[in-house]
């Protein structure tokens, strides 16, 4: 664990990205400081997951830079990028557990591929990661027999297998019941504190955002860029932008307010 790790982990400047000629977001800039939990917020379809793809190296941005530590990520050679990428842990939205392997094999695969550890150590590490996410009894279970929440946990255990510097999570609590979602939030906090990781999460689950995120960015689909920066709590309490305010307080945007009609049946 690094002691001096609160300095910026990720520095994004003027990032423009999209698919082909279609620009999803332009001119996005932000800094993620070490050991923080950083939220990428915004409505459905605004490009949150696409931004994450650019951050983890799956999608080359069309303009702008991403600095990981001191290194300009997309200017680096492919080998260097792979090396940096190994220090990332990524949890995909659906878990993306490899269906032909048991939970333990899923977690062990990165260790087998990228370390020279012996089999016993790899198994011990894989078991450890599974027990950290509360799945010590499910090691030899095939993914098909796991519930959605458990798959997500296996996904987190797999992302943790190489003790990453930065953990990326795409919608970690989507599709979970409130109690499981709360437990997952606690787990993310514990893991961040324990391992001293930096966490970047894509989310639009308000309770998660409020309870665990230290900082964040709000992407807007209409203007195609970031319209607010700051911790979700701060944005909720003091951001004046109508879209952000509506999002954070779970209201309709001002231009879609339904006027209560007289004699209506309580709808709206």
């Amino acid at each position: 664990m690094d002691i001096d790790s609160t300095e910026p982990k990720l520095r994004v400047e003027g990032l423009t990205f999209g698919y082909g000629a279609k620009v999803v977001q332009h001119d996005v800039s932000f800094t993620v400081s070490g050991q923080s939990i950083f939220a990428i917020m915004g409505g459905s379809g605004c490009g949150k997951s696409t931004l994450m793809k650019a951050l983890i190296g799956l999608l080359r941005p069309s303009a702008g830079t991403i600095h990981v530590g001191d290194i300009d990520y997309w200017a680096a050679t492919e080998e260097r990028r792979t090396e940096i990428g190994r220090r990332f842990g990524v949890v995909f939205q659906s878990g993306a557990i490899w269906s032909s392997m048991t939970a333990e094999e899923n977690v062990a695969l990165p260790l087998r591929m990228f370390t020279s550890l012996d089999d016993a150590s790899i198994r011990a590490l894989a078991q450890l990661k599974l027990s950290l996410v509360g799945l010590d009894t499910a090691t030899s279970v095939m993914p098909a027999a796991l519930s959605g929440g458990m798959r997500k946990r296996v996904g987190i255990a797999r992302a943790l297998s190489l003790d990453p510097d930065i953990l990326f999570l795409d919608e970690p609590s989507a599709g979970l019941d409130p109690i499981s979602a709360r437990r997952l939030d606690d787990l993310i906090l514990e893991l961040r504190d324990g391992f001293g990781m930096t966490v970047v999460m894509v989310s639009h689950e308000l309770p998660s955002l409020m309870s665990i995120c230290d900082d964040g960015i709000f992407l807007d689909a209409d203007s195609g860029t970031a319209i607010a920066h700051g911790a979700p709590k701060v944005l909720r309490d003091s951001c004046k932008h109508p879209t952000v305010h509506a999002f954070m307080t779970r209201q309709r945007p001002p231009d879609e307010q339904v006027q209560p009609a007289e004699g209506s049946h309580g709808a709206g």
Partner: protein
Amino acid sequence: MTAEPLTGRGWTARIDAVSLIIHLTGDWIARLDTGAELGAVDRIVEAIRSDGATIKTIAFDTTALKQWDSAILVFVLALRQAFKGEGQTLDEAGLPPAARRLLALTGEPVSADPIVVRANLLARVGRPLIRLWASGLDVMTLVGETVLRSGAALRGKVRMRGADLLSCMYDAGIGALPIVTIVNVLVGGILAFVGAVQLRKFGADIYIANLVGIAMVREMAALMTAIVMSGRTGGAYAAHIATMQGNEEIDALRAIGVPVYDYLILPRVIALTCMMPLLFLYGSAVGIFGGFTVAVSMLNISPEAFLEQTRASVAGSQILFGLVKSIAFGTLIAIAGCRAGLNAGRSAADVGRAATTAVVIGIVGVIALDAIFAVCANTLDF
């Protein structure tokens, strides 16, 4: 008390009155394989056992510890496991606070061995037999359903989308023409070559036309087209339906009450059953063309003589025989493909397995069915 120092990579242990203090030093990074070596825990256990009963607690000193990650957690968990039920207690207060938080998450180590129930001989023999019987019944049901629903379809009482049927027909018909052409032209040409070598010995070169014509129409066109279609279309049906299964698309159809059979399977079975005889006729023609090309260009047979000989030898009844076979093959391949897809599991590997099953059953089934046809034709003197 032993005088020799107990030490290993990244740690030294010191005995202080009734406690063993493990000093952790340097970096403990799992992926770099630093920290305690394999077997360190065993040595510590050994040392304590050999010491008799004086040591009561095991503690940690991490003042000289630099960077650490999971390596420490694995080490501590192994110690916990080793001293569970022994007389000593593990005092984890000396560990870094962050490590203790993580250890708190892991809880008690639980054995994760799956429960294996050993089956006796009767069960081991009986289960596959029951499964075989069940899958036999399954096939029967599918065939029966095909007959019933096709009847309903003829009376226009089936909830099937016309667009689906057309796209299946396009895919199983025009879409398959290139590969059917290549395979049948080559088979026709090969037959001509093989025949020429033998027939020339008797000066019966002209009978190459009979050989190619009868073989293509009676056997090869139907068989080769069926094998190609089994790999191409049967496999595709299985993969498509199996993927839908994995995405819960089939559950969604069932949930809103769409009859899966009518909606998914019937269009495919009808499409392939209708297209196979057409492909067979086309395959026969291009196969004979392949034989014709080889015979005329390489074996010095005049085009007129070849065509005349073909016309005289290939009777209508042989074409009919081929047609009937190709219809049966088409139905078989489509049902095998759809069944493999419907019975598939829900993972990515299951999609591959379903496609393999569809192709294997399709090809083996087609050849077996062809053999049955041959025996029947022989008995009936057809």
